[in-house]
């Protein structure tokens, strides 16, 4: 039996809550008559990096927007570390320990990096001692490679730096679980490698991560587990190798003719 004290915080909480940090049961979300999510049930293991994949319109973004409290739930239940967060306000969900990033980070151009990071530090109301070394804006900026840009205006940042800032902002919420919405989209190969390194470093802080991603290279190198959505339903889940070898997944992605 291993000593619990030597485990990272996330792994410790994983043991306490029986392994799942986020559990979704029979979740249904609809826009008018169109069901964007149709009875999806899945659980995200604590301490892991989980990939969330699926073709365009499969419900990935809807799932992230719903569990983070930005879309109303038509049916089902969302629980974070065992506590029910279904239908809660987004800022409450952040305070409960789940942070998310946005694909297109629209930060006010007249704010500095420091000022943007000050918002979650002031308002997310999370215990900062949980993440030693990430207690203040300067430390978080340095951790995300934004140290030299600390006092720069967001309007002057490059796309890559804005992506880093978006991860830094979410990190400043001191989350237990971080949802990354296409953090790599539109980046060059070198930049995406760097951001992947950053995600790995975040994971080493004991933070569980869910990545929405189109690049299979990212999924196969970073993720412990993969969840596949198609047409608003759960299609498959498992290790990257088994999921990507799955016939149904290949058909969903490539079309029936190509898969065989």
């Amino acid at each position: 039996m291993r000593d619990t004290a030597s485990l990272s915080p996330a792994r410790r909480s994983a043991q306490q809550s029986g392994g799942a940090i986020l559990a979704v049961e029979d979740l249904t979300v609809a826009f008018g008559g169109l069901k964007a999510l149709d009875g999806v049930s899945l659980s995200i293991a604590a301490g892991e990096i989980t990939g969330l994949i699926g073709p365009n319109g499969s419900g990935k973004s809807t799932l992230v927007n719903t569990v983070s409290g930005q879309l109303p739930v038509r049916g089902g239940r969302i629980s974070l570390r065992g506590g029910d967060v279904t239908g809660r306000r987004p800022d409450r969900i952040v305070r409960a320990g789940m942070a998310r990033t946005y694909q297109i980070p629209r930060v006010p151009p007249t704010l500095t990096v420091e000022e943007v990071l000050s918002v979650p530090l002031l308002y997310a109301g999370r215990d900062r001692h949980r993440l030693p070394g990430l207690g203040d804006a300067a430390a978080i900026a340095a951790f995300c490679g934004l140290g030299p840009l600390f006092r720069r205006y967001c309007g002057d940042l490059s796309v890559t730096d804005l992506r880093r800032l978006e991860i830094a902002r979410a990190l400043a919420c001191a989350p237990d679980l971080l949802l990354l919405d296409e953090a790599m989209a539109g980046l060059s190969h070198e930049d995406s490698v760097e951001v992947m390194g950053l995600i790995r470093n975040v994971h080493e802080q004991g933070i569980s991560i869910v990545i929405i991603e189109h690049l299979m290279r990212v999924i196969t190198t970073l993720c412990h587990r993969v969840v596949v959505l198609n047409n608003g339903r759960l299609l498959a889940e498992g290790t990257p190798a088994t999921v990507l070898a799955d016939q149904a997944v290949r058909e969903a992605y490539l079309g029936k003719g190509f898969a065989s």
Partner: protein
Amino acid sequence: MKTGLTRLLPYVLILLVTLALVWIDKPFWIQLAIGVAITAITALAWDILSRTGQVSLGSAAFFGIGSYTLAIFEPLIGLTLAWVAVVVVCALAATLLGLLTLRLRRMYFAIATLGFALSMQVLVVVFPDWTGGSGGIAPPVLADGDPRWQLGLIGLLLLAAVALSDTLLGLRFRPAFFMIRTKPELAAASGVPVVHMKIFAFIVSGVLIGLAGACYGGLYGYVVPTDVFTTNWSVLPLAIATLGGMDTTIGPLLGAIVLKALEEVARSVIGGTGYQVVYGAVIILFVIGMPQGIVGLLRKAGKLAGRRTATGEKKKERERHA
């Protein structure tokens, strides 16, 4: 970054000008200063609200509610409590209007607040038993009608408005307000209770404008609906804040001074009612010429001057090395 000295400048400016005018005791200048101070308070209040992305055209509603609340409540509960009532009623009206317009963006929000201001005027005329109808109402005269004390009191209210504006431009509020304006979802995802913050800004803004309106009504102890509920009081704060420089404290102050000065000059040079046309045209030219307002222009000038001294120093250094 702002130094402590420039931060103190507005406070020192207001204190010195107010004290000097009270000392000199020239009626024209005191009336002018009272006019500048009241419009400056409404402009600061409008700017505070706009920092959360809520561009209001309803300032006149709060201006009128302020003066009417003081007039209606003073005979019922006494002067001190009537002032408390001004704060409470304006806060309630702001909360109500804020909740009703919560989901409206930009133009739709502006139209809804304008509608609120216009309907308030109708409401006053429809219930003459309470409000005196179109004949007007008599609020208690401010400071027993002594213009110097009136200026002193309104100067204090302006100081309070400046202090509030500065507090809301501090690290606790400015980044959160701007994030709510640019992308409310991002603010919520950072733990900011967006609805509470928007209503909070609305209450601060509405109460400030209401207090300014109550002071205005108390200048002569008599107001009619067309005095306070006019579109003028809705547009003026917006024009002043835009002219002076939004998202700043000094901007609305400078804007109020410049606009009042322009108005007085146009009135004395052109006279009649024609001066209003010229005055309007000059405002338009100003806004076109200075999209960032007077503050933006000063910043640009400051940067140019800074660059000049910087290159000058480099030159000197080069000469020293040579």
